[in-house]
């Protein structure tokens, strides 16, 4: 007896095939590209020696704000940029 002569087996194979395809389509529709979490950082630059420092963003920070003193020369530091970076997940 061949595969095509057995209607029960053929029906089961068709039902199984359709189920697998539907399941795959459903999983694909649910799957979203994984987006890594991001944190906001503030980039400071010394107004005198040009020393650059990246720190965590604090509410109230804005570009051109004078914030803190340079660890090298003691001159005031100015915010040059505020941006987000991806947080690397530990493997």
């Amino acid at each position, binding site marked *: 007896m061949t595969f095509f002569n057995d*209607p029960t087996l053929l029906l089961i194979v068709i039902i199984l095939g359709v189920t697998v395809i539907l399941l795959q389509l459903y999983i694909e529709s649910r799957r979203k590209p994984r987006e890594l979490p991001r944190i906001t950082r503030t980039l400071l630059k010394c107004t005198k020696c040009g020393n650059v420092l990246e720190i965590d*963003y604090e509410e109230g920070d*804005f*570009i051109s704000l004078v914030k803190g003193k340079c660890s090298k020369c003691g001159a005031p530091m100015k915010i040059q*940029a*505020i*941006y987000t970076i991806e947080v690397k997940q530990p493997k």
Partner: protein
Amino acid sequence: MPGDWTDYIGQIIFILFFLMLFTGMNQKIQVKLWAYDIRNKLSIIKRYADDSRSRIEEILNKLGVREPSGIVNKFMNFFMIEPVDIEPTDIIRRLDHLIRSRERIFKDSLARTLPELGKYERSLLESSLEIASVLNYVYKSIRHYLLLGEKYNNWVLLMQLQFMMPETMKLVETYYKSLDSFIKGTPIGDSVGPLVAYKIMEKGKILSKNVIEDTVVAEVWLDNRRVYVIKAEGPGSNVGKPGKVLADLVEKLSGNVDLVVTIDAALKLEGEELGEIAEGVGAAIGDPGPEKIAIERATSRHNIQLSAIVIKMGLPEALHAMKKELYEAVERTVDYLLNLIKNATKEGSTIIIAGIGNSIGVAQ
């Protein structure tokens, strides 16, 4: 074997298939499935709209407003009727008038409600209310078409709505997530233009600085050239009136300008890289019309070269907190712009640089 159960199943499926085909039942099932899917997505949009609303109400509560829901309701339902366009005469002037009126009423109402609030905080609140208003409008529109489709059994309408939903959801998510930046006041992707302008101000020697209509005009001496830098006043959420201010400046200088450069964020095409820089001609500004036409008219009247530099990004990047990749693009743009100025103009020339976009988180 005759009488086998698989034969019966096969027969039933065959009959059902034919019955559905001729009675239109398959279409009805499809419409029900579409409506079900739209309803599910609509509930997500409602959650976003409600959440953004409650976050703003919470802020207003902290600021001492007794009944914040009334204020939020008023701003969320505020609208502007587009000017008549079948008679295009003076449409720009009418549109400009309506845009200015809308802004003034919005700002004045908020100032009356929260008189003690500073300009910076008020601008952030204004933008947050606008985002909540967009989310609320999208929710109400989708609900309207869903109910309309179901009421009149209009399956074409439901089908169109269902096909539009993935794009709509992406847009809604983008707006919802952007609320964080507007509440905190961090620079967004659209702030690349004002940030380039700020960096140019820093590179040269500032001779004068004025604020006209929420827009900063700084006169800078750079590479032996007189450079006027225009940007929206920061660090609040503000786009200013760079077009009008630029046009007035050109007139004030009697057209003695050698080069005008506008720098703005531009929506990238799918497949293009984030932060890609492109140069072209024209006014790089994405307003509804009045600002752009003011730049075009002023430069064409005096035959001034009008260059444009754009930094490419997607809509989510433009509205969310600025990514490091975009900041790096800003630095590259500043170098590019300095080269362009050196190559296109001689020493002693007068140049106008306009950094277009929202100056949130970028002062001057």
